[in-house]
């Protein structure tokens, strides 16, 4: 369950991408509100990513390039290219992973309490308090915000770190886990409200099998 929470938290925070707003101060709530307001103005976005994963199971970092896409109300897509190609679609709380090289499909239903709807609803309202169950810390250096999110309860995830500029545009997300695993994603070439269609986020074969 905790692992899925982490996945969700990550995916939802990816949605803060294009926040062209001014930071109001240097505390965590201000930082979070900056992201929220930015997100409120977008219908869809697309961005290129470079992901580095350091896992306890692997000797070396796994480096992947790819792209993320989002379309309101609840469709998220992330594609990683070879050598570890995968396409992940998240619709509401059903996650489908397609491995094109292997021709394998995995499908997981995430707990409803962690559904995308709930997070999107949270982002709809002005941030007046931190989300339940997490500790937030933010600092601003050289016009870059760094927001650190740590679960209050002991979970697999140690910390989620987001870096974004004064316009609220995220440049990096780092997920650190208690077992030493670490995922570092850098974003570039962000484009907002480009008029994405559902089919741009759901590959044909995935779409066919998505419940």
């Amino acid at each position, binding site marked *: 369950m905790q692992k899925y929470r982490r996945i969700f938290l990550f995916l939802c925070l990816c949605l803060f991408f294009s926040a062209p707003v001014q930071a109001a101060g240097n505390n965590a709530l201000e930082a979070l509100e900056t992201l929220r307001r930015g997100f409120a103005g977008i219908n869809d976005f697309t961005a290129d990513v470079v992901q580095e994963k350091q896992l306890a199971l692997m000797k070396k970092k*796994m480096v992947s390039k790819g792209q993320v896409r989002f379309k309101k109300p609840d469709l998220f897509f992330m594609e990683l290219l070879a050598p570890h190609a995968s396409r992940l679609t998240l619709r509401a709380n059903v996650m489908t992973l397609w491995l094109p090289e292997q021709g394998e499909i995995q499908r997981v239903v995430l707990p409803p309490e962690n559904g995308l709807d709930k997070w999107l609803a949270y982002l709809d309202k002005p941030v007046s308090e931190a989300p339940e169950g997490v500790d937030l810390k933010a600092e601003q250096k050289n016009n870059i915000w760094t927001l650190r999110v740590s679960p209050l309860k002991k979970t697999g995830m140690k910390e989620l770190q987001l870096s974004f500029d004064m316009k609220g545009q995220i440049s990096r997300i780092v997920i650190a886990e208690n077992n030493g695993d670490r995922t570092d994603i850098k974003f570039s070439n962000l484009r907002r409200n480009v008029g994405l269609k559902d089919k741009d986020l759901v590959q044909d074969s995935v779409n066919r099998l998505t419940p």
Partner: protein
Amino acid sequence: MVKALPAKLSAAVQSAVTAHLEWVFRLSSAKPGQVIAAALVFLALALTSLLNTRFEADIFKLFPSKQGALKLFLQTLQWSGSAQEAYFLLEGDRQALLAEVEPFVLRLKSLKVDGQSAFSKVIYRTYDPGEAKAFADFIGYAVARPQLFLKVEQVDNFAGRLLPANMDRSLKRAQAELASQAGMAMRDIIAVDPLYLRDLILPRLNKATQALDLDTSSPYLLSRDGRVLIVIAETARPVQDMQFARKLVTGINKARQGFSVHISCAGAHLSAVIDEATMKRNILACIISSLFVVLGLFYLTYRRVLPTLLIPLILLVGVALSLGTAGFFLSSIHIISFAFMALIIGLGTDYSIHIYDRFYSERSAGKSTDEALRLSMIDSGRGVFTAATTTAFPFLALMVTEVRALSELGLLVGLGVIFSMYATFFFLPPLLIFSEQRFPNSVYKPLPNFGLGRVWNISRKNRFATIAVSTVLIAILLIAALFISFEGELRNLQPKQSEAFLTQQKIEKHLSLASRQMLVAVEGIDLDDVLARGRKVGALVENYRLKKQLAAYSSLGQVLNDQPSQNEVLEKLQAQTGLRRPGTELAQALVRHGFEQGPFQPAINNLEQLKYARPVAMVEAIQRLAASPLRGLAERHLIRAENSYHLLFYLYYQGEEFNQPQFLKELAGLDPSARATGEELVSRQLAGSVKRSFLWGFILGGVMVLLLLITHFESLEGVFYSLYPVMAGVIAMLGLMVLAGMKLNFMNAMVLVTILGMGSDYGLHLAHRTSTLEEGQQASYTQAGRAVLLSALTTIAGFGSLALSDYGALASIGWATNFGVAATALVALFSLPAFIGLIVKK
């Protein structure tokens, strides 16, 4: 012989009955205040008893469940927790179902009764992500023991995955999954099984876990056609706790409002509560409609307000006292038994009709109030007394039956008839006296004779023709009656519009693995012994599957290999892997693909140990399965209850192709203590119970009626006059049922017993008034015939309301009785004058 032996006894009984009626008449006419006071005391006592009576809504409590298939059926409901489960069926298009299920489940989870969560568990997905770690642990255990979980046919595939080239392919897949955002969730399972050996084991386990035919590509419990989605919720408290169940149903009804998909609910016991309101409405509608018809008939015939208004009071007293008295005998009364009130309305009015009709006729003929009252209360009263007892006793005889539905109905109707009769005897005289005093100038105009005078004339003048015509008609109906068959399908007796019934039908249509199911239980105290016997039963079941008599089956033996199969798997596997060392090869492949070796060491060790593997003890395997997220598989097939182990086999079949008697015979030969249950077996058990009940009810009721008739008439002719119409009526009833496409069933079979008591009244009343008198026979016939006709109509009104009931069981009783009563009354009215004329002349 009839005259010789019981003559004295008969005379004594007649004398006692007359004396008793004299006493009742004296008391009721001279001391009405005391009668009313006594009635109020009895009513108060009945009310006290009623307040302490528990009313049951559980449909299963209506049938004998202490042995046989029904016992096992109810036990499995209890063991599996199904008795506590509520099933929610969402209907709509696929996308709508998927969109609505989560919000609905959230509502169910947050539903509270008395401040506590209403459900302890809500299942709506095939897999719970919260158990990912436990699932990974179990997979690690399972792939390390292929001898236990792998089908012999899959050994080649398993061995193939241990080849270095295939290891490379699997590890590439693992890398891709780990690199994806889903990788965090897959890390543990990849560590215990980097070669995806689980792909060969999980389908077998999943298949056996499923009791429903689901779309395997959906994570939800979605039907293959995508039309329905099921949510299974386990109630926090027993639903037999009616207060809890009622509040729960209120909460459920609220929780399912406002969705774009239709949500219906069913459940073994919860259904009764869900349908409770409908059931009550149904029964109330029966009671009110029959009351209106009965009162309408009475008023239209006699045009007197006070006696018409007295009838509801008589019926109320009859019903209240019978319920109160039954409360002393029964620990609880089933709500469906309230249908008896409709019967009391039909039967209890008969006595008022006979007595009042006689009183009215005598007054109309110029007799004084006292004289008319005496004749009606003592002379007609004697006929009424015998008629009431011949009606009540066959109903009371049903108490000996093992089917609660019938014994309870028998007791309530039997008591209701007796109390209604006494209420008539005690309340009618004072009311008539009061009425005469209050309205001294009342004119008693001649009553309508409904053409009965003509009937008498035709029947008497054409005796032979009348007898011949009625005999031919009865013979034709007898031929039709020979084609009567028995309805064994319990579902056809259920309420057709009941939500639970309709939901159950939809579940069967969209989610059932096969249309029919049989469950076999192998039981014992020692688990090893049970499993050993289970293997033999498993082989028998498999044999029937191979013969295509079974569509499928599910058992523990299907997912856990027994010792011989384990040896076979190991032998083949070890032969295929030969001198290779798959553990070492995995370690090398991991290095090649950049994996750390440490986290995979258990998997490496397990593969390395494969060549030394030995069969696993079944007890250990079951314990491990029960502790895993796939525990449902163990819980469904192996139950520990009542200090015994119960190994269950679920057999799915379509219908006639499964030779059940042969299977059960072979099962008994293989394991004499093995038990089996299923809808057909339960139906067969109930049919057996009903047959026994019918036999005893018929013997007891028949003997009682015969004795009462003999003591009443003191002649065989009198007995014939009473029984001929009812025998002809029974034949006509069965014949008409065949012609109407009806069948005998568990409930309406008992009408054959009760019609004996009810139907014999018609001949009795007619014979009582006409068989001995030569003068004034026609007038007596017209008077008694009118009362018989009205009695039959009021009985039909009472039972007729049941015929319109939504409950197949009640409706079948209603139709059968109406056919029987109508035919008996017609035979009595048309044929008896001819028979009486013929016999008296001789």
